[in-house]
């Protein structure tokens, strides 16, 4: 599903690479934690998958597409197959829960009948039934992140990228968020989650890829956050 082959990314005006000859494979339906300290290259990895950045060398394949050969014109179609969740939720403050989720479908031109059908389903999937008409500022952080997940998942993407989704949320609420991610993963969606949260990684027992200074230092199935020898 995601295939990195010897990928190096150096940002302009920086001499240290953000990713340094990284090769990794993520299969369809996998759940992968991307761990490592700040600046270790986790976000760069996610941005490369979305083709928001281009690698300086190496090849990236996402959903069977060679990103180097993907024209700018087709990048939006790639992104329709990838859902994204962020630490800061990125909801539209002047739209309610339903409208925020529906927005993702409206802007890719889905018919209204389809939107009316799938949006309530997804709102229920993330556990926000009955709150469709709340505004984002009337929701807790955990609930806002659920809205963001609903929006990321509403178009049934093949891949869900989560960049520290529990970074702004207390540990008790985080468990609920992880349950939703797990539920999404069980529908067959590949999930890649960058995180600092050791407790979550340890409790989930999923594959862990650890980055340090842009290099993969550990790739373990059913791993934990810290070094486990």
């Amino acid at each position: 599903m995601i295939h990195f082959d010897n990928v190096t990314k150096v940002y302009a005006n920086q001499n240290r690479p953000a990713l340094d000859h990284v090769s990794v494979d993520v299969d369809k339906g996998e759940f992968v934690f991307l761990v490592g300290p700040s600046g270790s290259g986790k976000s760069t990895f996610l941005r490369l998958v979305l083709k928001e950045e281009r690698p300086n060398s190496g090849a990236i394949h996402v959903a069977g597409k060679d990103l180097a050969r993907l024209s700018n014109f087709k990048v939006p179609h790639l992104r329709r197959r990838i859902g994204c969740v962020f630490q800061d939720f990125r909801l539209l403050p002047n739209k309610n829960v339903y409208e925020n989720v529906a927005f993702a479908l409206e802007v890719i031109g889905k018919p209204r009948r389809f939107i009316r059908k799938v949006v309530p389903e997804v709102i229920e999937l993330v556990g926000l039934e009955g709150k469709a008409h709340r505004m984002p500022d009337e929701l807790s952080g955990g609930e806002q992140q659920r809205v963001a997940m609903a929006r990321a998942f509403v178009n049934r993407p093949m891949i869900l990228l989560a960049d520290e989704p529990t970074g702004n949320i207390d540990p008790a609420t985080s468990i609920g968020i992880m349950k939703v991610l797990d539920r999404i993963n069980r529908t067959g969606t590949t999930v890649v989650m960058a995180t600092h949260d050791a407790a979550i990684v340890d409790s989930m027992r999923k594959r862990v890829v650890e980055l340090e200074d842009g290099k993969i230092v550990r790739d373990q199935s059913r791993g934990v956050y810290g070094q486990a020898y």
Partner: protein
Amino acid sequence: MRANFIFSEVWIGLRRNLTMTIAVIVTVAIAMALLGVGLMINAQVSRMKDFWSGRVEISTFLCKKDDPFAACKGSTGVDETQKQEIEAAIRALPQVENVTFENSATAYENFRTAYADNPVFVAAVQAEDMPESYQVKLKNPDEYVAVIDQLKAIKGVSNVVNHQAILDRFFGLLERLRWAALVVAGILVVSAFLLIGNTVRLSAYNRRRETGIMRLVGASNLYIQLPFVMEGVIAGLLGGVVAAVLLIISKVFLFESMAAYLAANSQLEWNDVAGVITLTMIIGVVICVIASFFTLRRYLKV
């Protein structure tokens, strides 16, 4: 593509940037109105040139008895043989196409019709006060300068009046007006361009959350950019409508009052005005679209 979604986005964008939108509309309106006035003057001049080019003549007046003109000093009026000599001299000039004689009575008739609304003036002049003249038509009306000197040199000629020279002065004035209008219009087009660029940039900044999410969920570039371009188009169209009103006003109050001094059928027609309005509207909208696209390419990277 969902039109009502796009239009609600456009409406939100225009409302959030109301002051900038008004600035764009006013600038586009004035720029297009001036451009339109320039084009209308152009149309007016070409109509007048068409009308006059077949009619321009040089009036060569003949001396009367006790004529005050210096060239006629001591003259007792021109008799028939002298008239024939003068006509022959005029016809001998290579630039001349045709010569017609106008006697006092005809001149008086023309004078009466020209000043029909001024009876006091008409009453003060007698038929015998009117000078006889030869109306000289040139093959090429622009070659009048040399001809006039030669005509003046003929004995028995009191004065030479060239209608072309009067027209040229008038056309020259119109030409300068047109250029002034076009230069100011050009400057305003540049400022309209920059203003639209700024408005779109502000709009893009105001909506960076929305556009960020749109990019993330895979909205196509067209879908992301269309609301911004439409904002420019609508501002341009509104500016064009205001410009059209200004042009109609200028047609009624400027060109029609000017037409009172001109020959009747050399007037600017309404379909000239319609053509100018259509053209300025198209130019206004095109400027807005181009300015929006240029700005978006810089501030809304995919």
